[in-house]
C-alpha cells in the first residue's frame, strides 16, 4: 500500500508582505513554505506509515526550487519525492493543475490499496479546488475536510467536518482525502531524517515524461489551457481617516459611548 501526498510550496502570506509601487505583490518579500494544510496531509500519511509500514510519496507541481521542500518532507519521513515541472505547465489554474497532477499520479501508478491525501486549500490561491478536481480526473471517490482518518481493511473511515458537526463516511480505496489543520499536529524533521533525505529517490517529471497521457493536452494545460484567467488584479485602497482618541480613559470612553448610542443603538 502506498499513500501519495500532494503538496504545494507557497509564499508565507501570514508574515509581512510587501506591495510593489504598481500594486502587484512583491513575491520575493515572502518566505517560501510548505502549504500548512499539506503538512497535515503528510502527517496523516506518516502516521499510517508508522502503523502499517506503507510507502509515502510526496508529489508537487512547481519550479525546480520546490525540490528543497520535497527534501524537507522526506526528512520528515516521506520515502520518495516527485517534482512535476515544465515550462508548459506554468500558469495553470486549478483545473489544469489537477489534470497534470492526475497524469503524474498515473505515471507513478495507483493500485487498489492506495490513498491520495491533499491539504484542503493552499494559502496563496485559497480555492480548495485541486483535491476534488484531481479526484475527478482520476475517477476516485473523495472526502474533504477530514478531521480523522482510519484504515480498516480495504476501506477507510473518515470524519468529515461540517460547520455545525460532522459526518462519518466509509470509502473504498483507492480514494482521495483532503485534510484540515484540526486533523493532527505535523511532526518535525529529525536529524537522521535530514542526513538521509538527500539519498532518498527524487524524480522529476517534465513535459516529455507525461505528454503521452491523454490528460496532457496542450490545449487544456498551462496558462493558455486554463479555463479561468485573471482579468484584473489589484490591491484594495487604504482606508483612511482613523480618529485616534485623545485624553484620559474616562473621557475617551464617554465620547465613544455617546457616539455608539446616538448612531447605532436604538
Amino acid at each position, binding site marked *: 500500500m502506498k499513500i501519495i501526498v500532494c503538496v504545494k510550496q507557497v509564499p508565507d502570506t501570514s508574515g509581512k508582505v510587501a506591495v510593489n509601487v504598481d500594486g502587484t505583490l512583491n513575491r520575493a518579500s515572502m518566505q517560501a513554505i510548505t502549504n500548512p494544510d499539506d503538512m497535515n496531509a503528510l502527517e496523516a500519511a506518516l502516521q499510517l506509515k508508522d502503523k502499517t509500514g506503507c510507502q509515502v510519496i510526496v508529489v508537487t507541481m512547481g519550479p525546480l526550487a520546490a525540490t528543497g521542500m520535497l527534501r524537507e518532507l522526506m526528512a520528515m519521513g516521506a520515502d520518495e519525492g516527485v517534482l512535476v515541472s515544465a515550462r508548459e505547465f506554468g500558469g495553470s489554474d486549478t483545473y489544469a493543475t489537477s489534470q497534470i497532477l492526475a497524469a503524474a499520479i498515473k505515471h507513478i501508478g495507483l493500485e487498489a490499496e492506495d490513498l491520495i491525501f491533499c491539504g484542503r486549500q493552499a494559502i496563496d490561491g485559497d480555492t480548495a479546488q485541486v483535491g476534488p478536481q484531481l479526484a475527478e480526473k482520476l475517477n476516485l471517490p473523495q472526502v474533504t475536510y477530514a478531521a480523522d482518518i482510519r484504515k480498516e481493511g480495504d476501506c477507510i473511515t473518515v470524519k468529515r467536518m461540517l460547520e455545525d458537526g460532522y459526518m462519518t463516511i466509509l470509502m473504498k480505496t483507492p480514494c482521495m482525502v483532503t485534510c484540515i489543520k484540526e486533523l493532527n499536529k505535523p511532526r518535525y524533521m529529525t536529524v*537522521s531524517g*535530514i542526513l538521509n533525505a538527500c539519498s532518498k529517490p527524487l524524480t522529476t517529471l517534465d513535459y516529455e515524461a507525461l505528454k503521452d497521457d491523454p490528460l496532457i493536452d496542450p490545449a487544456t494545460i498551462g496558462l493558455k489551457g486554463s479555463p479561468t484567467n485573471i482579468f484584473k488584479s489589484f490591491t484594495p485602497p487604504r482606508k483612511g481617516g482613523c480618529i485616534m482618541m485623545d485624553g484620559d480613559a474616562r473621557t475617551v470612553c464617554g465620547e465613544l459611548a455617546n457616539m455608539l448610542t446616538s448612531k447605532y443603538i436604538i
Partner: protein
Amino acid sequence: MDFALTNEQEMLKKLAAQFAENELEPATEEMERNHAFNAGIFIKMADLGFTGLGISPEYGGSGGGDTEKVIVVAEFAKKCMSSAATLSIHLVAPKTISRFGTEAQKKNFLPKVTCKGGLAAFALTEPGAGSDAAAVQTTALYDEATNEFVLNGTKCFITGGALADVLVVFAMTKPEKGLKGMSAIIVEKGTPGFTSGKIEEKMGLAGSETAELIFEDCRVPADNLLGREGQGFKIAMVALDSARIGVGAQAVGIAEGAVDLSAKYMRERVQFGKPIASLQGLQWYLAEMATKTEAAKWLVYYAAYLHDTDKPFSKEAAMCKLNASENARFVTNLAIQIHGGYGYMKDYPLERMYRDAKITEIYEGTSEIHKVVISRAILNQ
C-alpha cells in the same frame, strides 16, 4: 573555500530554529522560575535525534560532525541558553566514549544517551581542581580481588551531574604518578556509593542543573575504564577541545539572538517622534554588535571545519571560544542598553541573556586559560 552550508546543514538549521522557537522559547519562563532542568524538553530533543549528534548511527547516534553541532547549538542559544548548554555539554561524554571506548563500551553505553533519552555528563572539575585540572584528587584505586575501581572524592560544578544516566568521571588511578596517574572511568547513575550533593544556585543558566557529586567507596567494574590507565588527562584535554567549540556556538547563538532583538526593538520603539533606529548612536552600536558576532561565528565554524576534516584544531578551538564568549558579554550588555529600561525588566529576555552569557567566559576553560593555550601554540611553533 566553500562557505555555503550543504542542503542537509540548511535543513538542520531550519529544524533547530523551529524547535527553538516552538519548544524552547516558551519553556524559558518556567526554567527561570523553577531553576530546574526541563526533562520533557530533553526527551523531545532525544526524539528528534539532537542528543545523538556526532555519534555514528551504529550506536544509536544521528551522525554529523562538529559543524552540525555548531549549527544546532547556536540556533538553540538564540532562544534558550540553558537548553543550548544542556545539549552542548551532554554531547561531550558520548563523543569521548565514541573516540576512546572499546566496541563493548560503545555498544553498551552509547545507545542509552544517544537515542534512548538518557542524559550524559562529564565530571572533571573539583573544588580544588578548576583551571588546574591536573590537581584532581578523586581517587579510583584498583581492587584486584574484585576487578573493580573504587572511587572516592568529590566533584563540583558538574552540568547535569545529578540527573545523568551515564558519566565520564576523571579520577586518579595512580595518585603517585601525578598527571600521568589520571584515568577516565564510565560511571552509571545509581551505582552504590555515588550520590549527588548540592545543586548550585547560579547567576544564570537556570535550566541547567549544576551539581556536586560525591563518591564514597563507589565500586565500578574495571571494564568501565575508558581508554588506557593513565590516559585520563589526555582524554580530558581532547574532549575539552571539541567541547570548547560547543561553547563558542552557544556564545555566537546568544549574541545573534541579542542582535536580532535589538534590531527589532530599534524599529518599533518610538521616542522623540521617530523610531530609535533613526539615531546614529544606536545604529553604530548595532553595527558593532553585528560585525563582531559575524566574525565570531565564522571562527567557530572554522574550528568545527578543522575538527571535522581531522586537522589540528586545538588552537582554533580555544580562539573561537575565547573570542565568541567575550563577544557574547559585549553584545548582551549593549543589547540591554539599547532596550533602555525595558532591557532591565524581566518581561524582556535581555537581562536573562546577559546573565546567561557570562558563563561562556568561564566554563570549559576560562578565557585566561585559553589565552595560555593559544600563546603556547604560537610560541611552540
